[in-house]
Each structure stands twice: as C-alpha cells, then as structure tokens.
C-alpha cells in the first residue's frame, strides 16, 4: 500500500475551500480530440489549463504531447469531457 496522499480540504468553518489536485503517476500521453464530437464546453481547460486552451475565437487549442507531469490532469480532463471527445494514448 502506498502512503495515502492527503488532499487539501476546507477546514471546518467553510473558509477558503481548495480544489482537489489530480491523482496518478506522471506519464507521457498523446492527446487527440474528435472535432466531430467536441462542443467546446471547456471542461478540459478547467481540469488541465496548461494543456487545453479555449481561445477568445471559440477555438480549442491543445498540446498533443503534454509533459509527463500533466498526465494525471489530462486523464481527468478526458474523464470529465461531456462529449467524451478526448482520446489518450500512451506515448512511447
């Protein structure tokens, strides 16, 4: 059993709640987005802002080869994508 990673949380009194950090090992992923299904909700950017960027022109730009450190956040982005339009492959 690995040591349990304690996540930041709101102290009692409801002050300054903190969002959870993504969990998982760093890993190199290749990212692709199915433009036939993406409807630009931008949830991916909420999860992984260094990888996905919904521009002022309404276009989604993304890093197809993100850094290993971004792996857990990219996986979370793929999980929460409303349109399930993000495909991940493990980079070699």
């Amino acid at each position, binding site marked *: *059993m690995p040591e349990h990673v304690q996540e930041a949380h709101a102290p009692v009194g*409801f002050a300054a*709640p903190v*969002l959870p950090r993504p969990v998982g090992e760093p890993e190199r992923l290749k990212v692709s987005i199915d433009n036939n299904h993406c409807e630009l909700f931008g949830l991916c950017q*909420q999860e992984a802002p260094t990888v996905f960027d919904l521009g002022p022109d309404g276009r989604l730009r993304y890093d197809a080869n993100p850094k290993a450190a971004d792996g857990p956040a990219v*996986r979370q982005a793929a999980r929460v994508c409303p349109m*399930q339009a993000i495909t991940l492959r493990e980079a070699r």
Partner: protein
Amino acid sequence: MSSGRIAVAGAGLGALSAAERLRERGWTGEIVIVGDEPRRPYNRTPLSKQLLAGTRQPAELRLAAHRDVDATWVLGTSAVALDPHQRSLHLGDGRRLDFDGLVIATGTTPRRPGGIPFGRRVHTVRTLDDARALDAALGRARHVVVVGGGFIGCEVACAARDRALTVSLIEPREALLTGPLGPTVAATVTEQHAKAGVRLHLGTTVTRWEETGRGLRLHLSDGTVLKADAAVVAVGTEPRTDWLQASGVQLADGVSCDPTCHVIGPDGRALDGIVAAGDAATWPNLRFDAVPRRVEHWINAIEMGQHAADSLLAGPTAAAPFTPVPRFWSHQHGLRIQSAGMPALGTATVPLTGAPKSGRYVLGYTRPDQHGTEILVGAVALDAPRALIAYRDQIGLPLARRRAA
C-alpha cells in the same frame, strides 16, 4: 484498510470511478463490482440527447476506464441487503458477498407517479434499454408529449424536435429549469424552446391520462386535451436505497454520509469501511454549508467515486471532506448551458460577464454568510464556456474578494 476485498454495489459511473481510483492509489486487493444491468459501465448522458438524435450509437457509450481496474464483474443481479456488522452483501441471485470495504453507488431510478400508463407509449429515461425503447417509440410517433421541464425533459424535447416531431412540453412552473437555474436563465432557456417550436404548456399539470388503441389523451389542468402518440415522463428521480432499509444505515433522500463520504451507521457515527458515491449519496459539502444534499450531476459521480475510494482507504478519522464545485452542462437547441457550484442555493444574482439581454452571459448566484458577506455559491454560463472557467475557482468565496483579485 490495506488488503482483502472491496465490493462495489452498483456498476455505473460512480462505481467505475471508485474502482479506478482504488487502483491508482495502489490497492492490490480484490475489487468486485455488482450491477443489475447486464453491461459494464456506460455513459448515460447521451441517452436523452445524442442517442435519440442519432449522432451517437449505443456501442459508443461504453466508458473507457483509464486504468485497468482488474475487477470481478457480477452483472445482471444486484445487492438486495447489507449487513454492515458482518460486512456482507446479499445478492439477488441468492449469493452472499463478504467484503472488507464497500462502496455504495446504486444511483437513482426515475420517479413514476401513479395513474400514468407506462408501457409501449409512455416512457422514462435512465438506462440504455429505456433509451432504445423511447427511440423506437419516437420512430413511430408524430406527436410526443414531454412531462417535466427539467434537464432530461428539455433535452428529450430538443432531440424530438431535431427529429421533426411535434413536441408538447408540460411543466407546472411558469418557466423551464426554474428550480436549478432561477428565473433569469430559465427565461432565456424557455424562449429558446419556444423559438425552436416546442409547444409549451407552462403552469399546467396532467390531471388524467387515457390510453386508447390509437394513442394517448392527456387532460391538462387548464382544460386542454392533448392527443399524442408517445410520452416521456421526466419528473425527477428517487435514490435506489430500498435494499438498505433493513441494514440500519441512515437513509434520508439517499444514503446519509458524513463530509468524507463515509456512510452513517445506526448510532449516528461514520461506519469504518463503508462509503457511498454518486446520485444515491447525500452528504454535506462543506464548501457551502453543513446541510446534506444529493448532487445528481455526471461529473459529481466521477469526483465523488474518486473521493469515496480515497476515504475508504484512509478510514473515517483520516479522510478529508469531499468539497467539490459541482458542475454540469446541457445543450439545448444550440444553446450551451453550463453551471459551476450550486446556483439553487443563491438568494440573489449578479451579472458576471455579458448582459442577460444578449443571450450570452455568465450569471453569478450569491447568498450571505453569517457575517452578511455575499458568497458566490454558483455561476451559470449561457454560450460562454470560456468566461465560466475563471469563476469555477471562486465558488464558495466572498464575491468582494473576487473583484479585488
């Protein structure tokens, strides 16, 4: 908890997310997932949208677990009883499943009020089988009636209009989605449905249903009689917790949990080794207050499944409270509706970006804390996904601090 067997009651998104997180945390013991549907976890959100519109096929709904969860799947049967002290589940097929840890993620079932002739013409939508039956019914119909102006009802109305059907939508309140979104956004969405040709019967209810060999006749409270070929009833859900009645765990509109997702036992204390997640769980989100609530959002099933898994491994004393920013989306007649936080808790609204008249805006929902400071409890974006991003992280914080930042 470090070894043994973790059982998961339910085989939906919350169950899958919990199993995946257990493996991410290095759980090497057994995971057994029990679900009544004869299929592995799938994405329910297209059932009221793309599946009916024909832009997604059933085979595309399977959820990819991003890790190999290496679980034993017990499908086509469900847990029918829990003994929290013996740590065992009793299954519908007569088997007993002993466990060291348990995740309760049995979801909800649509409300089915009495007096409605459910069957070939009258449907609810929750499972893939429900959606297939509705799809077939829409294929035979010209006029479909949707009862209930919440998210499922509105989305089905959109899909049916996309199929060029005549659609009547019946909602007891004066606008669609008033409950979750409040009057300003509700007015925008209602106008969008009217423009798309949905025949709105607002402020009305169905007082009597008749089914004849030729179709349905719905008698409305304002005296109108609607003839229809098919109907969809989307008037809310009930948590699937009947099977827990005799277990002694606390139930109150769902499985009662402490702030960490641990299930509360007969003595009012958190049960070590039993957690709950998803639509069936009610817990106090300390980001907002100490009031237990259910959150029936797809993303919440993911996040709560993950957190419940963490809490199970940590135990009730060491586990952290689950304090997410609940989020959802909907797409209706080309209008993207997105929410962060809990807008329904707001006692006032404030425009954050754009003007409501423009139809493209972010509206903030606030309520005062015990000192009278206005706290941002929710934000809803209409066709403004980029503008919403900044507000997600402000949910639960004073509005003034946001401005100063």
